[in-house]
């Protein structure tokens, strides 16, 4: 059982520490782990309600916001005057008027274990590209399913897309359990259906949790309504899920973003390390030129570093004057990435106009924009069945 079950006493302990030992509290904050996740699923499955509930239950709503929420719930809420948590996240005027989510909203909260950024994404098919935007920065996808309705087309579409965008962990939240009398078999049927659908995806973990976003069951507290469920609550799942990706252990590579030339004596290559680690003295190769050199220094505003790792933004200087410009890749000499001007890829097409093979397009590959063509469309994926259909 998670500690956050006792969130009242936790809250008190936390404020005590803030009051008596702010420096100690800040130190703890510095080393807290961090998780980005999204909520997705079909329209009305309860995404906004769930996030509103997480913020509310983790006491992250300020009094003035709460007053606004109460006010709005009466004015435009869908809960007959009761708190409509969805209004906390639907931030655009058009969304509030129409009661739908158009674009992804980012929310921030933290518990004693982790800091979170959650992206609430729209369920309408029309706004899929906004859902994809939210998914691209997340490590975990919380896929909501309405217990009464089971898996819908949007559940499948979203599962497929988040997986394609690189999310490796799915939490399937079977919501609105209060509307099916908290029945275990309703939950189990959906779990079974989803598992068989997901066999064709490649998530490295899929976890299921039955909940009621509206009533709060299994959000932070387990509640008494689903004693048959022995797993963790959604919050404790989010607090403990391991999303480390061992990026640091992969071969070193850095995409050059900006050439740093303050004067004739200094020439550095600025960029964010995509993978691996680097040290002065390491041999590198620049691509596509395939020129080689050795790292002279890793320069930062805070002084030179002995080592830099994946995700750090640094400036590297080299022993030799080789020509490197924005868009080039600096990588470990013996384990370099392949270079090619042709490849096969799965594409999520977002534009209203259809993709046309043979037509020139601009292709942005991280730091470089080039023109390119799609030679042929091999197949389209049917997001419902995951079957391949003729292009």
């Amino acid at each position, binding site marked *: 059982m998670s500690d956050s079950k006792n969130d009242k006493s936790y809250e008190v302990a936390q404020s005590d520490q803030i009051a008596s030992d702010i420096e100690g509290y*800040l130190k703890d904050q510095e080393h807290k782990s961090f998780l980005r996740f999204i909520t997705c699923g079909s329209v009305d499955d309860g995404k906004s309600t769930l996030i509103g509930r997480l913020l509310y239950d983790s006491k992250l709503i300020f009094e003035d916001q709460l007053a606004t929420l109460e006010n709005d719930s009466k004015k435009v809420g869908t809960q007959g005057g009761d708190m409509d948590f969805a209004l906390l996240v639907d931030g655009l005027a058009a969304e509030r008027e129409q009661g739908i989510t158009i674009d992804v909203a980012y929310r921030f909260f933290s518990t004693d274990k982790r800091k979170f*950024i959650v992206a609430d994404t729209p369920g309408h098919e029309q706004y899929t590209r906004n859902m994809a935007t939210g998914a691209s920065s997340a490590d975990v996808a919380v896929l909501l399913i309405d217990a009464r309705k089971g898996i819908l087309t949007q559940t499948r579409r979203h599962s497929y897309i988040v997986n394609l965008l690189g999310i490796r962990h799915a939490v399937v939240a079977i919501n609105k359990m209060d509307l099916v009398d908290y029945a275990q078999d309703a939950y189990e049927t959906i779990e079974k259906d989803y598992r068989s659908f997901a066999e064709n995806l490649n998530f490295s973990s899929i976890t299921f949790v039955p909940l009621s976003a509206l009533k709060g069951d299994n959000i932070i507290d387990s509640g008494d309504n689903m004693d048959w469920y022995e797993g963790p609550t959604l919050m404790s799942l989010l607090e403990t899920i391991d999303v480390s990706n061992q990026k*640091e252990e992969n071969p070193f590579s850095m995409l050059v973003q900006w050439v740093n030339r303050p004067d004739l004596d200094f020439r550095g290559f600025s960029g964010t390390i995509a993978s691996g680690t680097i040290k002065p003295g390491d041999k590198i190769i620049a691509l596509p030129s395939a020129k080689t050199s050795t790292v002279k220094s890793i320069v*930062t505003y805070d002084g030179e570093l002995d080592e830099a790792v994946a995700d750090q933004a640094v400036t590297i200087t080299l022993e030799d004057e080789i020509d490197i410009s924005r868009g080039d890749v600096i990588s470990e000499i013996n384990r370099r990435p392949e270079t090619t001007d042709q490849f096969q890829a799965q594409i999520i097409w977002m534009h209203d106009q259809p993709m046309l093979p043979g037509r020139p397009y601009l292709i942005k590959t991280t730091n470089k924009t080039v023109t390119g063509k799609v030679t042929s469309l091999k197949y389209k994926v049917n997001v419902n069945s995951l079957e391949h259909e003729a292009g």
Partner: protein
Amino acid sequence: MTKLTHLQRLEAESIHIMREVAATCDNPVMLYSIGKDSSVMLHLAMKAFHPSKLPFPLMHVDTTWKFREMIEFREKFIAENNLDLIVHINQDGVDQGIGPFSHGSATHTDVMKTQGLKQALDKYGFDAAFGGARRDEEKSRAKERIFSFRSAQHRWDPKNQRPELWNIYNNRIQKGESMRVFPLSNWTELDIWQYIHLENIPIVPLYLAKKRPVVERDGMLVMVDDDRMPLNPGEEPEMKMVRFRTLGCYPLTGAVESTATTLPEIIQEMLLTKTSERQGRAIDKDSNASMEQKKQEGYF
């Protein structure tokens, strides 16, 4: 092996965004409002391009009603760090005598701030402008992209934002259009304070509590910063221990009573209070969606 902390990750993300702009935009500018978020943004920019100088100027849209201490701080900081700063004032507004007391907060903010900003962007032809807004500040901000597209009329269309995947940003624009870029999008108020504390970033002293002359108006504590402030009959400035959670035009920025005179004390107070940061700003109170509307009209 080095293990990055949450703040180091945020720092790296912001640096990446700034370098992207420097490398791909023709004529970027960094909006500098002198507040804590701007101070963090500027500090990150100095990190991003070190040892080079910033490859873009800073710009302050001065409404002429900022706290005096803000302007002093600005002058000193810019000189000490050898930075390029453009100060833009909407001269039309000055000529018409626009001010918060005579014209009210909405007109003053629109003319001196929003119109002033648009004027300046057009005058210098900037194609990208950095702003220090955070997604945790307000609901419509929570929806905004990091690279946020603006039409030639400086309008934001919240219903039709561009996809923005991973850390790949689409900043292609036509002539006259521009980008607003928000490198602090994913920072929270706590992150900002903590970073200021850890990195020793200089901030305007108004953030720290001190005895200051204030009067109470419509439930807001207004500091009497100069003699342009007309006092109502019977109104007498009182010396109170106060500080400011956000900084802007002094007549529109409410002070909070506080004894916090150090950064950890500010953070402590922030964590233990139950009102959100923007409450001190008169301009947000008008209506719920007012920030969204202002942003659509070109406000940052």
